[in-house]
């Protein structure tokens, strides 16, 4: 989302415009969700991170110092909650097994079920394969790409806030990760 647009929407929402708030939820919600997903949390924890970020934003509405940077504010808030939950789960369940933490969720979304019933079987297969290869990338690449592919595309500032990495390192990392993904797809003989 464009910064100026975000700034204006935050201002309107603070003045009581519910439609502006809804636009913010639709424009920045996928970014917040991607931050929770990229940290390998359980579904329940990811839901709580998403909620906490939005509740806090509502609470601070009208007090945000730089409204145009709200995307980064939300991403950063979500990230800190993720790190806190990871720390908590580590304390309570003494598993440090990265395999376990990295395991993709077994839950099938309604969208996946719909996908099953769609006629475009080849397309479906392509999407599934792409996602499968994406999920088997290394943790750093998966984390970075998951945030980058939220929709609408986030700015590098927002990605930086979401993952705690320098803005300057995002471009090169992005290229490397996408190259790696392409190589995996080529190995399966499925480049588009």
């Amino acid at each position: 989302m464009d910064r100026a647009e975000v700034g204006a929407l935050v201002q309107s929402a603070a003045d009581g415009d519910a439609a502006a708030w809804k636009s913010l939820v639709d424009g920045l919600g996928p970014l917040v969700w991607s931050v929770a997903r990229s940290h390998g949390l359980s579904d329940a924890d990811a839901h709580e991170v998403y909620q906490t970020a939005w509740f806090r934003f509502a609470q601070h509405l009208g007090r945000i110092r730089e409204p145009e940077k709200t995307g980064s504010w939300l991403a950063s808030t979500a990230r800190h909650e993720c790190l806190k939950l990871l720390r908590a789960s580590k304390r309570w369940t003494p598993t440090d097994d990265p395999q376990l933490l990295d395991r993709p969720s077994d839950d099938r979304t309604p969208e996946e079920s719909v996908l099953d019933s769609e006629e475009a079987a080849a397309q479906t297969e392509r999407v599934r394969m792409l996602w499968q290869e994406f999920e088997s990338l290394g943790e750093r690449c998966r984390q970075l790409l998951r945030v980058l592919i939220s929709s609408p595309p986030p700015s590098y500032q927002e990605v930086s806030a979401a993952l705690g990495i320098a803005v300057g390192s995002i471009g090169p990392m992005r290229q490397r990760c996408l190259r790696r993904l392409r190589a995996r797809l080529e190995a399966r003989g499925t480049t588009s």
Partner: protein
Amino acid sequence: MSDMSDRHGFDDFDGSGDGPPGGEFPADDWDCGLLEEELRQAAAILDPVPAGLRGIAVDAFALRDLDARVAELTFDSLVDGIPVRGESDPPRMLTFQADAVTVDVEVTEDGLIGQLLPPGPARIEVLSGPREYARLTADDLGRFTGEAPPSGPFALRLRTGREVVVTEWLRA
């Protein structure tokens, strides 16, 4: 995760280098953007924001509270505490502060214990998202107890004689 450094706070971000990820890239990178876009569509299909969750965020507009002062979290045993040896499930200790007002909260499975400072009576609402809440009362010494907040993020809204203070949302 653990190797991710934590030194970049929100305030470190400046306006430089901002721009759409699909902006300027070397020529060799042409299909890089295509692959990313394809992946973006896959994410929208296979891992979208759950509809119910989006609804909760939309409803959260009701939580804006322009008259209350926000008491920020200044201590969280989960982050700042030293684990007690042998204790597998220590109580969660939280401190919130808004100027001169301090709220100490201890959350265990059994319930919630709190102390308002400076000590004094207050009416307290336990908020659990935009809709549900429970009510508590702080006695003349500023002490209050209640049931443990339900799962999910919670906040306390405290009405003392003089002002309304609401604690920063967080998960217990």
